């Protein structure tokens, strides 16, 4: 993207001044180098989102922004239901509540030396990954499924897939309120039946990592992270149920938008008023899908704990935090001196509340929310912390990952799965995946530099770096 099209306010804050039908400015947080590397569609999509009714303050883009569906990936936009605000499927994504959780193991990286292969093989054998592989938990009847859709991670914990302490470390305390299982179609239910406790494919992963560097000793101490610690990250979403809901409501909103008088600059911005029947139906279904994702990551956690229990009996896996990066949440924000309840879309962006926020669990309230940012398989990931400044700059939002640097098609032309696995093994990183093509598409070289992204987020005041994590074992679909 040509940075000359933007007004630079600070080294990491760039505005698209309102023009045409834009109701608010576009605000992009990124270094100049990241801006230059962004595709031009980001400019168009940030501008388009800014035209939507009821949008409040700005249409935001995080440092990892790239071309999405209507909304850019890395897009954040809040809407006021009292001024005709809309809700958009593209602003949430197909993989509703795709997110990450980080588990401490109580082990040091050195404790695993010599047993990496055994752990990798066991995780690969037991974790259901990829296409066609069913989960261990089958939801047989509608009642069970409804209970899961209403209860989320709390449902899973009540069934023995974790502890109450886990719930204290999950957004929404493990249960998204306002879920309406009645809004979830029969097809979505059937699509989920065999997928409970599965990882998925594409950019989903389960990674055993070591804490390689600390940047904020105080926050790291509060997160109980030390250099040399062994940790586990799980990146997965709402599986078939979420995807089916995304598809069904994309169709519904595409057809209905004109009936609400919405003149969309891009039909991919399919949306409806929040207060409309379809808007409320989507909210009910989307929240159910969030619970499905939270339950799914909780079940995966139980599976990982079971594997560690056999391979590394001294380990004790505790949850640092679980964040979603494809959601629409109702949040209170101070806008022009008034506190308003807004519907905040974050598509490929993470909530990043600062210290003192009442929605944070008590044990983290004085330090701020952990923000988990995945790099690529083979490169580092980061733990960040939300800032107070970020609350006013970007409605308490931060980046979520590195973003792709090339298409899957290009990645397949440049890389082979076999070579990637061999190269990473030579660096001491074990990749386990049933799909060589999937590995090639997810090659480290196909992604941008996550360090540049988190550095820009810090410079922009959205979040602060706490720790860097290096991969040891990566399980992929």
């Amino acid at each position, binding site marked *: 993207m040509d940075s000359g099209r933007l007004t630079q306010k600070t080294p990491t804050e760039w505005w698209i001044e309102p023009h045409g039908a834009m109701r608010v400015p576009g605000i992009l947080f990124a270094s100049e180098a990241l801006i230059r590397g962004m*595709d031009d569609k980001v400019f168009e999509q940030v501008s388009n989102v800014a035209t939507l009714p009821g949008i409040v303050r700005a249409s935001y883009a995080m440092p990892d922004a*790239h*071309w*999405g*569906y*209507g909304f850019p*990936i890395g897009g954040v936009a809040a809407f006021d239901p009292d001024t005709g605000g809309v809700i958009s499927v593209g602003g949430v994504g*197909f*993989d509703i509540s795709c997110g990450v959780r980080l588990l401490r193991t109580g082990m040091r990286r050195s404790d695993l030396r010599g047993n990496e292969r055994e752990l990798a093989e066991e995780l690969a054998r037991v974790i259901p990954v*990829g*296409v*066609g*592989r*069913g989960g261990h938990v089958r939801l047989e009847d509608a009642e069970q499924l409804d209970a899961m859709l209403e209860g989320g991670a709390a449902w899973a914990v009540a069934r023995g897939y974790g502890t109450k302490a886990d719930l204290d470390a999950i957004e929404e305390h493990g249960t998204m309120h306002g879920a309406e299982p009645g809004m979830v179609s029969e*097809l979505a239910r*059937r*699509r989920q*039946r*065999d*997928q409970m406790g599965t990882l*998925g*494919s*594409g*950019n989903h992963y389960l990674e055993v990592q070591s804490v390689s560097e600390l940047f904020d000793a105080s926050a790291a101490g509060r997160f109980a992270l030390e250099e040399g610690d062994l940790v586990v990250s799980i990146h997965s979403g709402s599986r*078939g149920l979420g*995807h*089916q809901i*995304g*598809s069904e409501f*994309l*169709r519904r909103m*595409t*057809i209905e938008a004109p009936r609400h008088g919405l003149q969309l600059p891009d*039909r*991919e911005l*399919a949306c409806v008023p929040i207060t409309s029947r379809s808007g409320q139906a989507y909210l009910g279904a989307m929240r159910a899908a969030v619970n499905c994702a939270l339950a799914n990551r909780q079940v995966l956690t139980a599976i990982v704990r079971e594997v560690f229990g056999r391979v590394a009996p001294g380990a004790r896996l505790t949850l640092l935090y679980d964040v979603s990066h494809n959601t629409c949440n109702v949040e209170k924000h101070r806008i022009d001196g008034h506190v308003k309840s807004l519907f905040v879309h974050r598509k490929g962006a993470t909530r990043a509340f600062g210290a003192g926020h009442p929605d944070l669990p008590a044990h983290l309230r004085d330090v701020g929310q952990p923000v988990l940012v995945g790099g690529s398989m083979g490169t580092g990931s980061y733990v960040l912390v939300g800032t107070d400044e970020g609350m006013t700059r970007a409605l308490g939002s931060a980046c979520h990952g590195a973003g*792709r640097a090339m*298409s*899957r*098609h*290009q990645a*397949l*032309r440049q890389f*082979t*799965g*076999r070579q990637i696995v061999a190269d990473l093994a030579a660096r001491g990183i074990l990749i386990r995946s*049933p*799909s*060589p*093509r*999937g590995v*090639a*598409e997810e090659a480290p070289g196909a992604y941008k530099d996550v360090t540049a992204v988190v550095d820009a987020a810090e410079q922009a005041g959205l979040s602060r770096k706490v720790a860097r994590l290096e991969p040891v074992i990566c399980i992929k*679909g």
Partner: protein
Amino acid sequence: MTSPLQPSIVSRPPPPLVTCAGWEHFPHGADIGVRGWGPTVAEAFAQAGLALTAVVCEPRVVRSRDVVEIACRAPSLEVLLVDWLDAIIYRMAAERRIFGEFEVRIDGFELRALAHGEIIDAFRHEPAVEVKGATLTALEVTEKPDGRWCAQCVVDV
């Protein structure tokens, strides 16, 4: 063990007779574009279905062990394409199927099809990725000046 698909997920040569139908992928950011073309809109849809299969695995390794009926109706050809691809995606996800051949009939904006395939076998098919849904990105169903129909969109993986 190199995937049989690398590096060649590109166009398929048309069959030797006159009909000129085929499929290909086109690149898009984080996801994949599927495109089918043929002398009729129904054939273009059938080819788009093969392009969708090819996102997951090579269509030629899929055996025709059973057949599934698919029917959809939409307010336009474009939405019909999204519905068609989503119906295939649903069966791949919920029924763990993969399809290697499609027979499609389209009447106005109504589609009826027979999808030939089998239950997915992780070892034989080596599925690369799970498709989440069809999107409106690059969504087009058009008749070209030479009479060929083209049906395409990006799918989210």
